[in-house]
């Protein structure tokens, strides 16, 4: 391979890796928020996001209703939040007792959501686009599309919003305190349950946003979104699983690495590649790649 060819290829690969990586990061943020506050790995994350995306599709495409995209998203957000509240309510009685049992219960929730999606929407493969004007321009070797800009804008808005909530609001202070030491917090009178609920709701919203943004690049089916969440899980592991900046940066790293792997090695073994990334990270950087750089703080 020539050097010129390499340079011609690498920049677009990096760019599209960063764009999809932003979405993996957003998905991972939801997982990490839930894990930090309640010590539960939420395996229903992907299934809930999938349900949300299908609700948007169903209500905007005419398969159930034909609302505008915006009102369909609002409805989907409402439903996703309601499901998040119900699933937390199910896990609430055992969440302090056993990480293991709570994690198994989230799998149960995920299975129910998965079955629900298949029951209502079938096993069809559908398209769900973003309602943004289509345009694109070249920036050196990189082709930037309106989709890319939308993803970047939404990601930046979400990260900034999350930062403001966590740094500036009372709820955010409680969240930080709970994720450092849950039992001390209870003694100090902070309400653990409301912090848990906040993180579960935030997780649901983040998952739905990530799903809505990733679906236009492929298609929507009852299995694509849940398996997309493997990228989010990998991003979370790369970031150390309990660091919010780690999850965001981990997402981008995973996005880039996946793009390079699929271009230079093989596009057919993406999940196997992610498995390898997870195992290597756990072995060599158990607290995440960024442990030193960021120090695992919020």
């Amino acid at each position, binding site marked *: 391979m020539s050097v010129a060819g390499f340079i011609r290829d690498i920049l677009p690969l990096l760019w599209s890796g960063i764009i999809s990586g932003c979405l993996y990061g957003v998905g991972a943020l939801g997982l990490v928020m839930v894990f930090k506050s309640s010590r539960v790995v939420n395996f229903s994350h992907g299934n809930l996001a999938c349900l949300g995306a299908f609700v948007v599709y169903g209500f905007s495409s005419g398969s159930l209703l034909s609302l505008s995209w915006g009102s369909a998203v609002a409805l989907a957000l409402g439903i996703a939040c309601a499901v998040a509240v119900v699933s937390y309510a199910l896990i609430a009685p055992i969440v302090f007792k056993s990480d293991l049992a709570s994690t198994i219960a989230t799998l149960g929730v995920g299975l129910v959501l998965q079955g629900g999606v298949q029951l209502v929407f079938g096993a069809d493969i559908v398209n769900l686009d973003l309602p943004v004007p289509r345009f694109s321009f070249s920036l050196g070797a990189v082709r930037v599309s309106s989709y890319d800009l939308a993803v970047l804008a939404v990601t930046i808005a979400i990260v900034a919003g999350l930062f403001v909530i966590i740094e500036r609001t009372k709820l955010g202070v409680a969240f930080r305190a709970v994720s450092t030491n849950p039992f001390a917090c209870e003694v100090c009178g902070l309400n653990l349950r409301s912090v848990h609920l906040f993180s579960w709701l935030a997780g649901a919203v983040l998952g739905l946003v990530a799903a809505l943004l990733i679906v236009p690049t492929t298609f929507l089916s009852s299995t694509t979104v849940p398996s997309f969440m493997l990228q989010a899980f990998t991003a979370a592991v790369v970031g150390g699983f309990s660091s919010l900046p780690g999850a965001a940066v981990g997402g981008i790293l995973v996005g880039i690495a996946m793009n390079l792997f699929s271009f230079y090695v093989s596009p057919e073994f993406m999940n196997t590649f*992610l498995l390898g990334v997870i195992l290597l990270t756990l072995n060599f950087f158990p607290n995440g790649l960024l442990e030193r750089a960021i120090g695992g703080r919020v």
Partner: protein
Amino acid sequence: MAVSELAHGTKAGVSARNGNVDAARLSIFALVAALALLPLLAGGFLLYSLSLCFANALAVLSVSMLVRYGGEVSIGHSFFVALGAYAVAIVEHRLGLSIAVSLPLAVLLGAIAGFVFAFPSRRLSGIYLAVATMALALALPEILIGFEKFTGGFEGLYIAQDLIPGISKALQRYYVALVLLVVVCLALSHFRKSAQGLALLMAQAQPRAAEAMGITRSWARVSIFTLSAALASLAGAMTGFASSTVSPNSFTFFSGVFLLVGSVVSLNRLSLPAALVGGAFITLVPTYLAKAGDWVPILYGVALIVVTLAANAGDLRRFLPRRRGR
């Protein structure tokens, strides 16, 4: 005095326990005898389904073993099951040998794969392992289809060779699976009393104390996962033998989750009846509810939630009032 009360308590308790043990043993013996005699009365599809139940019961045991002795969940045990199943198929295709050879090989491969997989997260909490098993489950279909040359791709491979020549296929599948299941259950009950079994239980319940007795966390975590993966691979070999075929259809992302469902439904117990309940649940429900396909995940999900909550309900009564005043 306290000690004398204890002594009386001991005698009463021990003899009562012995009585229970005898009754339990007798009923298990009756169950095995009934299953052994069943082919005299039934045949065809029922025997075939039961052979698959036995094979799946072994797979469920491998997940339960991980939960009981390791305190860990895996949703990717389908990977090790597939490893065993494909080992049997590939050995037959390439070398023309029966499961007499491939069964031990499958167990060995499962152990090696389990060790390699568990080693990286040996010092971390079980949560990380659970996440890694998710990747394992998702990578499996890719690998099976990607290495078409060995695995037969989408079509899969057939397993035709008998273990014991001269006996009908249906009976072979049935009895080999049954005998293996009984032997594994006996081995597991022996394991519960072994030094390693006790050490693993201690490492799970009291990791710090176990460490002070020379039982390191990484030893415990890697050993139990290796054992469990070896058993899963054995179960896979049996699944392949009992169904005479292996294909990616039987190893989707959800197969691993379903194994966990089977384990949870059988309350993670390692006894023969529990294994049969778990195996039957994940074998027969999809078979008999084939028409209501989309209801199966819902049913499984509800089962997971209900059993998990119910299994922890006893502790709830003890924990909640102290934790919260309301």
